[in-house]
């Protein structure tokens, strides 16, 4: 099939790729651009491990053709920390044991980022509602809820400074 030239804006940088129009953003990120922090599992929008931000909103990158991301800001887990420090969300996932095998973690971190940008002081119920599109098989979710609560609290403190 004919490939189309495409510029993708990923984590603040511009990337030129040539892709088939049906190629999913997940595959282009992982296979063409090497952003393997975004994970692949069900490939049909069920598990959330491929969650990335598109103009600051969460999407399942396995369901979005890369061409549909043209002109939009794509953010992956690789852009969450600065070079030397974990982001408070990432630190919270480590501190609260919200990470076990870690395969769902990048997706959860992206969803948490979107949540906390919309709501900087979510209740446990709001957290559970917002993150229902991301499956985790290891933690039983206690550690993940605790991580989001800690991250929210840390971010509120930082934003006050």
């Amino acid at each position, binding site marked *: 099939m004919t490939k189309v030239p495409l510029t993708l804006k990923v984590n603040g940088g511009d990337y030129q790729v040539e892709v088939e129009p049906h190629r999913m953003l997940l595959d282009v990120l*992982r296979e063409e651009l090497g*952003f*393997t*922090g*975004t*994970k*692949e*599992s*069900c*490939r*049909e929008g*069920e*598990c959330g*491990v491929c969650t990335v931000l598109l103009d600051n909103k969460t999407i399942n990158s396995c369901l979005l053709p890369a061409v549909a991301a043209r002109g939009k800001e794509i953010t*992956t*887990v*690789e852009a*969450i*920390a600065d070079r030397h420090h*974990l982001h408070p969300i*990432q*630190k919270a*996932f*480590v*501190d609260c*044991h919200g*990470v*076990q*095998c*870690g*395969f*769902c*973690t*990048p997706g959860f*971190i992206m969803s948490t980022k979107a949540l906390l940008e919309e709501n900087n002081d979510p209740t*446990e119920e709001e*957290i*559970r*509602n917002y*993150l*229902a*599109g*991301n*499956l*985790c*098989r*290891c*933690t*039983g*979710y*206690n*550690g*993940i*809820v605790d991580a989001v609560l800690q991250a929210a609290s840390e971010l509120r403190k930082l934003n006050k400074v």
Partner: protein
Amino acid sequence: MITKEKEKVVETTVVGRRLNRLDGPDKVTGKFVYGADLSAPGLLHCKVFRSTIPHGRIKRLDISKALAYPGVRTVITAEDIPSNIRYGHTLKDEIVFARDYVRYYGEAIAALAADTREIAEKALKLIDIEYEPLPVITDPEEALKPDAPLLHPDWRDYKGNPALIRYDNVCAHTSINTGDVEKAFAEADYVFEDRYTSHMVHQGYLEARAGMAHIEADGMVVITSSTQNPFGLLGNLSDILQLPTSKIRVISSGVGGGFGGKLDLGVEHFVALLARKTGRPVKYLWDREEEMKAAAPREGSVIYVKTGIMKDGTIIARQGKVILDAGAYSGDDTVIASVGAMLVRGPYNIPNLKVDSMAVYTNKANCGAYRGPSAPQTYYAIESHLDSIASKLNFDKVELRRLNALKDGDMGPTGQILDSVCMQETLTKAAEKIGMDQPRPKYTGRGLACAIWTSAGGSSCAYVQLNDDGTVVLITGGKEIGTGAMTMGVAQIVAEEMGIDITDVRLITGDTYATPYDFGAQGGRTTFNVGNAARIAAQDAKRQLFESVSEKLNVPVERLNLKNKQVYDSDNPAKNISLAEFAADRVWNGGPIIGRGSFIIQPTEYDTSTIKGGTYPVFNFPSFHTHAAEVEVDPDTGEVTVKRFVVAQDVGFAINPTGVEGQLTGGAVQGIGYALSEEIVYKDGVVLNPNMTDYKMPTIMDVPRIETIIVESPSKGGPYGAKGVGEAPIILPAAAIANAVADAIGVYIHELPITAEKVLRALKEKEEKK
């Protein structure tokens, strides 16, 4: 932290603390590399052509069109494998590709390697096959009937562990007999009998099975995959590839969840064969549909249980029949049948016991190990049964269990003498926490269930090397699969012994060429077994260190102590040397220090006359458990909501309480999914729901915050008194929830999962009976 170990009080500074896991930063930044992330220059992609019918004769198989498709480099079938090759752990009945017959929906028939995944998928559709359908057996009780057709007419020719008892469609039959059940049933005041069924479920790891292979110039096969058990694959790979194990190297990459599902061959044999045929590196990543129809799920089962009980509540006899639906090949069910037999008595002291536990061939995916193999269904059956007896005889459900609970010095089902028993403590704490004696509103119920559980044996080895900056590397075949066993537990043990911080420990793990042997990340054994090996290795390194420092500082070895990264004279702490200073010099004077440790659990004594056909005859350093649930049942829809869930688990000693709690909460939620919503649904041998929408794993919205109670009853064999932790939390939720549902609606559901449909039907039947 102060811990009682072997009746000795030990002061610790690293073990027992809530420290962060070492692989956390890599995992939260996306840097951690899993099997699914592997790549290599010139990589080819594997896809497997699988049977679309559950049972039949292959009349014609034509791969020519697929082979001719541009970008396809090779297609292999049974023709490429010597016809006498069958593999397996305890029973060699499995084949790489179906030959002449297919025995389950999803069985591998051919594999191909192509330039891209897309080409591989397209080429798969060009493989032509014609079957002659054969009668399908999907019910293990049907398969047990004398006139049932044999799924493996050649079963006698299969090589297996001589301890296995096999016949007809039964690939393993374990029986346990103690006392005289018939006599006891005759003497009992009451006898009750029930039948329970359970369903097939998937481990649900989010990283599908994945791996890659390449061949070195001398023919050495190098496989990297997300396996839980690199050494455990060598034997079967050696059979399939017809190579000595020394010509095969298996490296375990990052593992995105396993829960037992990545213990056996999944991708490794396919990529190795294709890499050898093409001379190129080949990768295989399963898709979710393959996972649901052809992985190594937990078997469905039918369980009969019969109990003789006295008026005062003393249980005097138990009989059980466990029928495991093993699927088309034995998988791990030969051993699982034996484990199931051990569980029928439960955590109670019942003197008269008769158990038959069978793994039976049917036309379904062959089943494997899934966290707590055979336990969730067996405990569901026996604990639901006991609960219903308590209801019928009007016994208090906690007191009836307490009355019969195992105590120190009691015997296990096969005569082993039990110690460190704390059944009652977990029961009391869980019952109190959930409020068993508190009033509840209509359609709200509380229930609990109790268990004894084991940890796997097998051996483990480790090296501990002192680096030139005073940090250490732990080198072991053990593997971190997410639990924290390596990156918390074992790392903490090494840090404790070496007087350093956990962050001073680096891990090199799971490589059959570069690391010493380990029996695999399975059976809740890593912290226990690798922990012991690593501790011995660290103590060996410390001994060498002290001998050398003794000479250097002119202080007798007995007076030396190691703390805070420093070796010092305990009589004169000013006389000291830092690990870093010592290690930097030692590289050039005497050579670097490396300690080694090898560990295997001492076999537990038992009465061999009590068990026949058993490949798992004792509980290794057993632990004790009570789970309690509070549920709400919607009488209009039948839907069950778990409002509260309490896990009280004996962990021996919590090396890292946070890590322990992570196992308790994670296992409990998997167990809740097993109880209520997850099921691989078969109809006439075909899987109806091979995706994650229709296979319903609990989301964060479906479950409450799991409440945990850590009970510490130290074991004599585990490091610092630890017991195996990871498996057990999954074994009781189904039982506890079934009992809570019965408490809410007055009916015991005898068939898992407890779906809204079944609850509604039970409510209606109850209404009609009135």
